[in-house]
């Protein structure tokens, strides 16, 4: 396909956007043609989300020009953008959790007959869109009953609801598993064939190389260039993004494993059934599985968020019944939840305060607390993480998604836990930063820390872990040393194919 032979569908050129002292975008540009999938790439904080929100009318640019089919758009609002067929999937799902899936999908344009909202129509059409995404979600279910991954899919369904001409996806796959990601890209391919212009942001290089036609790279808010992916390889893109060449993303330190740090024997709770596992000192254990397989549920049980109902748990050989997150932390367990905005960070607090939260929480009630504790925690936690901020006294809500994630991880690293639980730790984190995080982690593991990582990126698990446990419907169905693991083998167990084989 030669996109250049057509006229661009939507363009943004010379875009500049500042937030106080921060220059988010400076002479950035994006040009989308009908019938293409266009990857928007860049490190965390390079301005991708800002650019997409400007295209969707969610915030105005300071300067610059946006055109749609050659027509300049001035003073674009979200409502206007939608009317013109521009749909956006936000980096953080923007849903009303008290409302139903169906109503969220049609928010702001519920179908009416004679001025009366037709609920039958809402649910019928929502069910259609959900079916297209191969989602088995009842459109009448409230969003609050869905896991983060499901919510992300609903957010996508919302954007698809009015058959947009321009579809902008901001890290839409970051909380999806492989199966959902595949479904999504199959759908995007169909939309491309129908002439839709699609832009997507992703930090997963394989996704970009496999599915996109062209890629635009931003660095520090500036336009670096656009490449046809059929004529480029990923190293070129990475060096455009980072300004240098990265050799490998994964750091795997060879660590002599120590004695058992955590042992679970036939632990059950809610979706989890009879979990047996061991994590040794200096060991990195990965958790693979589909959405809803129970990875998060498992980590939540260990972190004391939910109490186990049956079975036994040992930390450092001592039998424990973890009562609360506080209790877990007293046992030396650190935990990074998957929903950084909802469960991790206090968004209007500064980076310092967020970084110090776990340290401060571990103190006694009337223990004195000063900014010094926060600063020390920040300094220790962010060591090697390269958080991109204009000032650590800035509110964490003003950071880009990836940088927020780093602050959250830093908060846990600051308490030097014996066992660290990471739930989707690199969601929305760029390649360079992933490297930073894992370099840091491997240093910690050498110090004897044990680690559990739940991730939907199988490559990452294989690259980082010593051992990978695969969960299927709340049970551990496979325990594979990373050296012997392949994406195919993990996917085989995760999808429950072994059951079909047995039958």
């Amino acid at each position, binding site marked *: 396909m030669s996109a250049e032979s057509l006229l661009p569908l939507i363009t943004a050129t010379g875009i500049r956007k500042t937030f106080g002292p921060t220059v988010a975008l400076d002479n950035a540009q994006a040009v989308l043609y009908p019938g293409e999938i266009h990857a928007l790439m860049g490190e965390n904080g390079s301005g991708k989300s800002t650019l997409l929100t400007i295209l969707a009318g969610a915030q105005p640019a300071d300067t610059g020009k946006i055109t749609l089919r050659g027509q300049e758009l001035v003073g674009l609002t979200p409502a206007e953008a939608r*009317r013109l067929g521009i749909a956006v999937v936000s980096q953080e799902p923007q849903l*009303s959790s*008290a409302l139903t899936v169906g*109503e*969220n999908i049609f*928010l*702001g344009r519920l179908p*009416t007959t004679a001025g009366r909202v037709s609920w039958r129509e809402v649910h019928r059409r929502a069910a259609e869109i959900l079916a297209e995404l191969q989602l088995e979600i009842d459109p*009448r279910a409230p969003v609050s009953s869905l896991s983060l991954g499901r919510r992300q899919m609903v957010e996508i369904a919302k954007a698809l609801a009015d058959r947009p001409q321009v579809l902008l996806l901001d890290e839409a796959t970051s909380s999806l598993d492989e199966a959902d990601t595949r479904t999504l890209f199959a759908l995007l391919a169909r939309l491309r064939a129908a002439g839709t212009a699609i832009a997507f942001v992703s930090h997963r290089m394989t996704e970009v190389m496999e599915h996109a036609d062209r890629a635009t790279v931003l660095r520090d808010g500036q336009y670096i260039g656009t490449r046809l992916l059929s004529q480029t390889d990923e190293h070129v893109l990475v060096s455009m993004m980072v300004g240098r060449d990265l050799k490998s993303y994964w750091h795997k330190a060879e660590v002599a494993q120590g004695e058992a740090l955590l042992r679970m024997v036939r632990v059950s709770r809610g979706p989890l059934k009879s979990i047996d596992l061991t994590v040794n000192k200096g060991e990195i254990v990965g958790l693979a599985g589909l959405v809803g397989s129970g990875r998060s549920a498992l980590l939540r049980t260990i972190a004391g968020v939910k109490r186990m109902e049956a079975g036994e748990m040992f930390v450092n050989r001592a039998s424990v019944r973890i009562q609360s997150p506080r209790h877990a932390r007293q046992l030396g367990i650190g935990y990074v939840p998957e929903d950084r905005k909802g469960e991790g960070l206090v968004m209007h607090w500064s980076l310092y305060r967020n970084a110090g939260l776990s340290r401060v929480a571990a103190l006694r009630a009337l223990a004195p607390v000063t900014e010094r504790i926060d600063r020390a925690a920040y300094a220790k936690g962010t060591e090697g993480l390269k958080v991109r901020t204009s000032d650590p006294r800035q509110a964490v809500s003003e950071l880009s998604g990836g940088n927020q994630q780093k602050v959250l991880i830093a908060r846990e690293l600051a308490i030097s836990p014996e066992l660290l639980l990471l739930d989707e730790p690199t969601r929305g984190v760029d390649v360079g930063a992933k490297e930073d995080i894992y370099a840091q982690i491997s240093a910690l593991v050498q110090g004897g820390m044990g680690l559990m990582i739940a991730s939907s990126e199988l490559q990452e698990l294989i690259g980082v872990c010593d051992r990978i446990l695969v969960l299927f419907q709340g049970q551990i169905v496979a325990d594979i040393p990373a050296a012997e693991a392949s994406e195919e083998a993990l996917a085989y167990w995760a999808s429950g194919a072994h059951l079909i084989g047995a039958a």
Partner: protein
Amino acid sequence: MMTAADISQTSSTTSLATILRRYAGVGAALVALILFLSVTQENFLKYNNIMNILRTNSVMFVAAVGLTFVIISQGLDLSVGSMTALGGVFLAELLTSGVGAWPAIALTILACTFLGAVVNGGLIAYGGFNFFVVTLAMMQLLRGAALVISNGVPASTFMWDPVQWVGDGVVAGLPVPVVLAVLIGILGYAVMRWTRFGRSVYAVGGNETAARLAGINVKQVRVAVYGISAACAGVSAIMLTGRLTSSQPVSAALGLELSAAAAVLLGGASFSGGAGNIGGTAIGVLFLSVLANGITLAGVPSYWQGIATGAVLIAAIALDRIRAK
């Protein structure tokens, strides 16, 4: 508290079972209370007593309907009581200055709506002011205005039949204020449930950013919501003035905002917004009304009434929690 699942039931699947489940918390408390009073108080089930309960509390219900919109949109309107008082004074002023009764009624409701939409709504939506401070300030300001306009003196309105009719008339054997309250309740329910506007109130309360990105004009919704609350207060003002055959600048509807808000919250709405509905509000108002009636019927000394009311309120939400588990 109602769960989101409750709200999302569609009309097509609304069966008795769903209704029961939806309101089981405070609804159950209400049923228990009614059964208890029917058995222990011989006068409770008398037609006159029931009408007395309904007539007395129509005013609170109408105010609570308006407040339901505000609370669902994640706000609060503390100026409802003062607005009701001012509405009454304004009405009396219009009447005594020779405006006809029906036009005066219409003008009063319009004036209240205007004040609520422009001052409360405008400052909160367009000025970005804190809703608690704005409506608290308006609570003082409007009560002050009622005092200044009337010079603190109640004005009799009993010569104007339409006003009396609204507040204390009878139509088809039923008290007019009760009929009006039911109509307003049904209207509010329909608007909340079946109009785009109603749904955008939920959307704004549930997640303001999501609503804005979905193209909903959040500011307009907020203005409308405070306008509706004030309009309902205006209607309450007419009803109350008619019922009392006079405007009451000092004492009319004192504390109405708090009891109406309690009713709305009892009915399943929450301050985190996005949840609740008029059906729940009706149950909340009925609960408070029957409770108050029962307490006087049973001859509980007025000193003890505060204690009884507080304790039963807590019991009611406790029941609600038990059900939710």
